[in-house]
């Protein structure tokens, strides 16, 4: 191949490739390791983990939609202790780069999770999934509330210290994404992950009721790609210096390049891996080829390229 510098950074974390799993779409990496070597991609973003083990929502937990799907998993997971005991050591052993995603029901829970992670070595960054219902405020999703978003990130930042980059993962279901983004960056986020799923619903025409056990679910897949590209573009325009991990419907190298040109420093692949276990590998290869074909010599040159002035 040619001399393309494919590496990227998110805060002070360096990755040899800009390709990541999306949280909740790769479990903790083991299952995909059957299909490719985890070291070959940028990094594994693990499924959002909470303090305690959680059984999640009732089934059905998914519905396919036009070019997308709804999910309502409800953050099923083993809890932080089991996660640290089993999943992190496995990923370290595989020599995978690890981004740990955390989720909480209170501002305090996020900080406590951060405390647990502070001293764990082998982790490259923390993704803070704030698209969770805030039990202290009528179940209003943190990421939909500028003040709660800030407080979560502020708490995590204080606890974790300056070492580990914090990536705040935001929900697109807000009136003013840029102001939420600005708030969490001011509170100490080193980067942003955009976007989490879009709230949706499917009615089952046999039962004539909402199909999902949890009634509503999160829409993901190619259907939401234009929303995700818009979100990344808007936020990058407002804060060009803040690295963005872009996601939402990325299924091939062209999708990935769109996201990078819009302003993403890295991309996460979620739903596409369900349809194709080796999706991340082909996206990575196609993206490389496209960058070379277009004359870029580094990935970095392409980040936010769609924002350059009209004259160029």
């Amino acid at each position, binding site marked *: 191949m040619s001399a393309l510098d494919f590496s990227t950074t998110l805060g002070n974390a360096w990755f040899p490739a800009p390709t990541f799993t999306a949280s*909740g*779409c*790769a*479990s903790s990496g*083991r*299952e*995909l*390791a*059957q*299909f490719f070597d985890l070291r070959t991609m940028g990094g594994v973003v693990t*499924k959002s983990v909470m303090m305690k*083990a959680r*059984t*999640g*929502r*009732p*089934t*059905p*937990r*998914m519905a*396919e939609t*036009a*070019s*997308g*799907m709804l*999910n309502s*998993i409800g953050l*099923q997971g083993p809890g932080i202790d089991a996660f640290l005991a089993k999943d992190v050591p496995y990923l370290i052993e595989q020599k995978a780069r690890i981004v740990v995603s955390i989720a909480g029901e209170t501002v305090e829970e996020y900080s406590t999770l951060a405390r647990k992670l502070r001293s764990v070595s082998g982790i490259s960054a923390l993704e803070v999934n704030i698209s969770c219902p805030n039990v202290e405020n009528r179940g209003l999703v943190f990421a939909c509330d500028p003040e709660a978003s800030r407080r979560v990130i502020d708490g995590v930042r204080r606890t974790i210290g300056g070492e580990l980059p914090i990536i705040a993962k935001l929900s697109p279901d807000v009136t003013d994404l840029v102001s939420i983004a600005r708030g969490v960056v001011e509170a100490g986020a080193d980067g942003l992950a955009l976007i989490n799923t879009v709230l949706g619903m499917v009615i089952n025409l046999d039962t004539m009721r909402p199909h999902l*056990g949890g009634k509503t679910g999160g829409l993901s*897949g*190619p259907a939401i790609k234009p929303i995700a590209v818009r979100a990344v573009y808007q936020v990058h325009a407002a804060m060009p210096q803040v690295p963005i991990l872009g996601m939402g419907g990325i*299924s091939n190298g062209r999708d990935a390049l769109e996201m990078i040109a819009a302003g993403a420093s890295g991309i996460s692949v979620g*739903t*596409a*891996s*369900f*349809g*194709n*276990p*080796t999706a991340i590998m082909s996206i990575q290869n196609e993206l490389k080829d496209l960058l070379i074909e277009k004359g870029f010599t580094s990935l970095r040159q392409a980040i936010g390229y769609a924002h350059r002035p009209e004259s160029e």
Partner: protein
Amino acid sequence: MATLNKNAAQVRAPIVSNKRVGQYHQLIINIGELAGVCKPGNFVAINVGGENSRMVLRRAFAISRVSTNSISGGTMELIVAPHGQGSRWLCSQGEGAMLDIVVPLGSAFGIPTEAVQVLLVGGGYGSAPLFGLAEVLNAKGCRVDMLLGASTASKIYAPMEGKRSVNSLRIYTEDGSMGQSGRVTEPIRALIEDLNIAVIYSCGPMAMLSAIDEITRGTHVVHQCAVEESMACGIGICMTCVLPVADEAGNVSMVRSCIDGPVMDGSFVQWDKVGKTL
């Protein structure tokens, strides 16, 4: 979950034949050497709708049988019910069409170490994997009896060749259009006694599996069932396909049916909690 689909691979595989059988389609697909690692109970995940498809998820189908010495290389057979848009698309694919398949996935039926009496119970297309299983059990020296049920005759899948490995085969239809009239679960209690059954292998609708569990609960009969939950990924990464299952200590957790299943020990499944919040 120990093995984590260690033999699974993603392949492009041609359809060797596609025949209508009652309300189902029998698809023979050339998967080459992978046929050698497929076990009864395993399933496949197939891309549907072609290149410009709006369907983003794979569809799961039980492997009905494999043949490793066929002229066209190793093949596997699927029995597909045209249900929604994805399975209908699959049933409309002709000979030579290339499919994108991940195979083999999931757990397999456990085979007894000694020759025992076993009963195989299939509902609808759930009979598909049972014939392949019967061959294996038969070769082990087990006496294999089989019950098949469906709502109506055209939904009974019971191929001639399949019956070779079976000691007896009884068919039940709810509308009485084939075999005996009634549910396939009705005669089970009596058969367990009469035939001194050690293991029941079952595959079919969840309600059937749950009814069998009720019969075997508290007995010495082992119930190995192949469950069917909606699956988004089929390889253990999405957590959509879960079922409430107890462990040895009695702790119930939501277990992925794609990777810790589809074949499970029915006595551990919490049938009354399926689809409920734990």
